């Protein structure tokens, strides 16, 4: 286990370059030849407030390129907010977020809902993930490839509304992967699926991650899922990282193994311990660092 990076009160104040304001995405990154390149993430002193409510408090996080990171925590602790900041959907109130070399279009996000365009065929929904400048034939071919990857090549011409929930989420995965992103951000993408489909999707995500080696950040409320997939699990509490665990187990991992059970127990203990007040009731001040240290010791 590595200890969480201790975040001080000092805040980095240098300007953050929002990912969605930069130059247009470069189509060069789409070539499969460049697969395997993940983007490192560096988050320094990230704070995010909505009105007077501070959700993230001087959060520090470093993710090496190609790592599979899982983020867990109570509902409302700011997991989605952190993830959305990584892909430029939220701007930090203060602090710095750097993904790769800071260019736009490095990261792709998959939401809890598939968010497919109902009026576009499956293949065209996948093409949403590609640069608009790409010739139609080329983008179609790449989209079909990506659909093949998730096992839905034969459904390319259908409307999304005829697909099952799990299939829709696979199309969303294909859309996220089709541009060969260096970062894949997953915000509880399997939360709405039944148990069996979930496990299938988990293996699918693990497989494409092993193939493409992008950096993966998975937000989940399911500790077992986090441990089944991730190299490292961080727990967010009171706006910071309260627990940071390396999961150094061989893949594919066996569900219910003793090691996973032990790690799961540790994380759950932490979640249910007295230190873990529901974040939603947390008043807008920063907790004492002492309490914070004690929490993961």
């Amino acid at each position, binding site marked *: 286990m590595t200890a969480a990076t201790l975040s001080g009160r000092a805040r980095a104040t240098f300007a953050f370059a929002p990912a*969605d304001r930069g130059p*247009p*995405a470069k189509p060069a990154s789409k070539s499969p030849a460049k697969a395997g390149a993940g983007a490192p993430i560096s988050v320094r002193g990230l704070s995010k407030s909505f009105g007077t409510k501070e959700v993230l408090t001087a959060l520090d996080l470093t993710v090496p390129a190609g790592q599979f990171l899982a983020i867990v925590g109570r509902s409302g602790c700011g997991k989605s907010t952190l993830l959305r900041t990584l*892909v*430029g*959907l939220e701007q930090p109130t203060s602090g710095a977020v750097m993904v790769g070399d800071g260019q*736009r*279009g490095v990261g*792709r*996000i998959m*939401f809890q*809902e598939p*968010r497919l*365009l*109902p*009026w*576009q065929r499956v293949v065209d929904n996948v093409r*949403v*993930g590609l*640069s*608009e400048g790409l010739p139609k034939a080329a983008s179609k071919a790449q989209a079909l490839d990506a659909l093949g990857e998730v096992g839905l090549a034969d459904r390319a011409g259908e*409307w999304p*509304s*005829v697909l099952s929930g799990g299939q829709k989420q696979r199309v969303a995965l294909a*859309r996220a992967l089709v541009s060969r992103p260096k970062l894949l951000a997953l915000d509880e993408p399997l939360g709405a699926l039944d148990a069996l489909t979930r496990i299938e999707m988990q293996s699918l995500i693990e497989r494409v991650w092993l193939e493409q080696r992008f950096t993966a950040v998975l937000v989940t409320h399911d500790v077992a899922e986090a441990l089944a997939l991730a190299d490292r699990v961080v727990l967010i509490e009171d706006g910071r990282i309260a627990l940071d665990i390396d999961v150094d187990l061989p893949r594919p991992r066996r569900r219910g193994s003793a090691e996973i059970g032990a790690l799961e127990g540790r994380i759950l203990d932490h979640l249910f311990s007295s230190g873990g007040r529901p974040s939603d009731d947390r008043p807008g001040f920063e907790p004492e660092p002492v309490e914070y240290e004690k929490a993961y010791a």
Partner: protein
Amino acid sequence: MRFDAKSLLAFVIPVGLILVWQALASAGMIATEVLPAPSAIVAAGWRLALSGELWTNIGISAWRAAVGLVIGGGIGFALGLTNGLSRLSERLTDPTLQMIRTIPHLAMIPLVILWFGIDETAKIFLVALGVFFPIYLNTLHGIRTVDAQLVEMGRAYGMSSWALFSRVVLPGALPSIFVGLRYALGIMWLTLIVAETISASSGLGYMAMNAREFMLVDVVVLSILIYALLGKLADSIAKWLERATLSWHPAYLHV
């Protein structure tokens, strides 16, 4: 085929009513000055069709309807889009439009006659005014209610403003825009009937009023039926358009 049997079902009652009507008229139970028999109406239609009078009047009425719809609907659509996409534009124009909306457009007839006389402009103006609001309101509503999650997805996936509009916002607003269009078509015919009946020297409404002066009840009823047919035709075209453009919609998938 199941589909054909179903659509035939819709004709059972109208055809039945016409048969009963014909039977009662032939038996002399309905006075011809009150309501002529269906056969008499068909004969009148045949007579007018042969003389060409019928086609001229239908043509003129349809032309007025179409021009008014294009002008009023076009402006309503454009303003609906602009106000749906820009809060500034909405703040600037929407309160005024809502104020104008409280005036029943048919109440403007005396004023419109004063302004434009009884020539084409008057009728086209009234139709345009009538169709403007349903299209404006429904376009605005459609754009405002586009799924925000889809818009966010589009942003997150780096769509340009144009792509966001043409691939996410407009298709999302389309069902609502069609509701506005079909509503507008009803208002279009209604406005035209009133305007043509009150002041015109051609068109279906004029044909009916002219026939009334000569006590040609069959032509009066014929005009009314043709109005109904044209209204139905316009609605069917809109429905067909809807089906063609909304083929992704679960409601149309099985068709």
